């Protein structure tokens, strides 16, 4: 019978509580006017990015000598989940050493996982802090060697920030050794008959065997690469694998020999 009275009082009470709560919420919002803004004026102020930020991919050079650090080992090409890296290299007839001709990264395909930077033995391929890569066409997202390679100053900056070990000792004391080791390694892979100086060669062979690739293929393929001035741009996995073993030799033996 007195339901309406009860309802009335309940309604009044609810209104009072509600008004109090709304005031509390609004007060909290209003207090934000007194705080410094947390937003950043982006195009004018670039946010400070951490050293290991995974931005645009780039290739470093030796910060001191300006020598390109890529040894065409194709590890990044092999590990890339999106197959967006394309390396063109050939064996130079004079030095019998792999020479980098072109290095293409399709940033339209890249998912910025950073796996290529993790496997790179010479810390050549890195993620820069650059993320402003918008462009007008898809084709312009394919960066070639010239566009990818950083200057000496930039390389020094990234080597310092990422705390990657500098390639200092190599040019200082192991530069001749590295040069000496490279032909040996290349020659070994090319003929696959020379006795391997270290266990590295064996591992390379076993790897090749496990991956269902016969050593003959490596033999037949690498002379081709020697004769032809340009390796075919679309390399099959086999060649990538046969080449993949070399940097381990080089990086493993170079300092030891020197």
């Amino acid at each position: 019978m007195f339901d309406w009275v009860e309802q009335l009082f309940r309604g009044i009470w609810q209104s009072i509580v509600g008004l109090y709560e709304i005031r509390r919420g609004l007060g909290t919002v209003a207090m934000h006017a007194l705080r410094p803004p947390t937003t950043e004026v982006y195009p004018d102020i670039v946010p400070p990015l951490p050293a290991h930020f995974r931005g645009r991919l780039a290739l470093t050079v030796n910060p001191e000598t300006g020598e390109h650090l890529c040894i065409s080992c194709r590890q990044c090409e092999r590990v890339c989940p999106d197959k967006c890296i394309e390396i063109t290299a050939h064996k130079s007839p004079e030095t019998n050493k792999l020479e980098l001709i072109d290095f293409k990264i399709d940033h339209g395909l890249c998912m910025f996982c950073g796996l290529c930077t993790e496997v790179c033995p010479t810390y050549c391929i890195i993620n820069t802090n650059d993320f402003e890569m918008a462009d007008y066409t898809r084709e312009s997202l394919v960066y070639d060697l010239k566009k990818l390679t950083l200057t000496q100053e930039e390389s020094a900056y990234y080597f310092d920030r990422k705390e990657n070990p500098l390639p200092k000792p190599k040019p200082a004391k192991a530069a001749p050794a590295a040069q000496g080791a490279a032909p040996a390694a290349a020659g070994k892979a090319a003929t696959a008959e020379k006795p391997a100086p270290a266990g590295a060669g064996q591992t390379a062979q076993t790897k090749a065997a496990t991956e269902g690739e016969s050593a003959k293929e490596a033999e037949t393929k690498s002379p081709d690469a020697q004769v032809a001035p340009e390796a075919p741009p679309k390399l099959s996995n086999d060649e990538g694998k046969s080449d993949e073993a070399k940097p381990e030799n080089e990086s493993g033996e170079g300092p030891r020999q020197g």
Partner: protein
Amino acid sequence: MATEIKSDRLKTDEMIINMGPQHPATHGVLRLILKLDGEIVRHVEPVLGHLHRAQEWQGQNRTWFQYQALIDRVDYLSGMFTSWALARASEHVDGTEVPERAEYLRVLASELNRISSHLLWLGTYLIDLGALYGFPFYPFREREKILTFLEEISGQRMMFNYIRIGGVQRDPKADWFKRVEAFTKEFPERVNEYEAIVTENPIFLDRTTGVGVLPKSLAMEYGVTGPSLRASGINYDLRRFKPYSVYDKLKFDVITFDKDGDTRDRYLARVREMRQSNEIIKQVIDMIPQGDIMAKTKKQNAGLRVKAGEGFAAVESPRGVLGCYVVSNGSDKPYRFRWRNPSFSNLSVLPPLLIDRPIADVMAIFGSLDIILPDVDR
């Protein structure tokens, strides 16, 4: 409260309406086929698969190393947990001992990620309820700080690829821990702010109290997990129920509610979970030991392999129990994957919750379940 709807006087023809897939509140591309009687929902049919990316199949066509980088994309708001489930399952298969410091770092990174996931949920849920102005930016402000922390250790804000098979990717520096600690001290105050704005707000109460009541039995029938299950009063948290990693050394209680959970309880469960995660982070920073961050037997390069065998492991993700079943044949590629994604089970309980509710409640209920569509479709 607007819980009782008298509709028998307003009988109309049923109308079929497609909600989504391009609907701003469906958190991705969910399509709901609603049969409406006036404003009342009489039948619901969720249509899934718009975001199907064959994540399991892709796993069989990539090496272990490559798949680790991909798997963060399954649940993009909590990538740490998918990585962790994969890592735990793989470690279970070949019996890898993970260094203790790596385990603590995993807990630390994951709890940070849990907070960031809940913060995003809080902001977007309030948008779903109509609070379009201002409020969503407050949780995003804190989320931004957390993402900066995670970016620093992993390299990216959301696709972390931080937790690896055998350990973690990178050891943070000492000042990183200090900054995280400073954040954990100010964070509870920020949660108080959100609660002052939202929790007792009469509009919020009207929209959520008694809406979308999920009884215990229904939740268990449909396999609902995570905060939605705990809000319904079931004391089930994998971190306590089956402690993995170092959770058995940490002090925290499972957040449960006494009654059948409605939408507001699910909101409260997540807010309390944020505070709880914050406490866990504090403990972890105090307890973290020195040492290795990667098992000696595992190398993070193309040669990463897992011994032949099968194994299952699950983690408590922000959305529920995230399980991963791995079959390995010892080669560089996984043989088979099977994921148990929490969002899928949580979404399947949506139709019974929506029946006989007005269409305005659809988003309130759907949002409260915290569903990520890539996690549903994989």
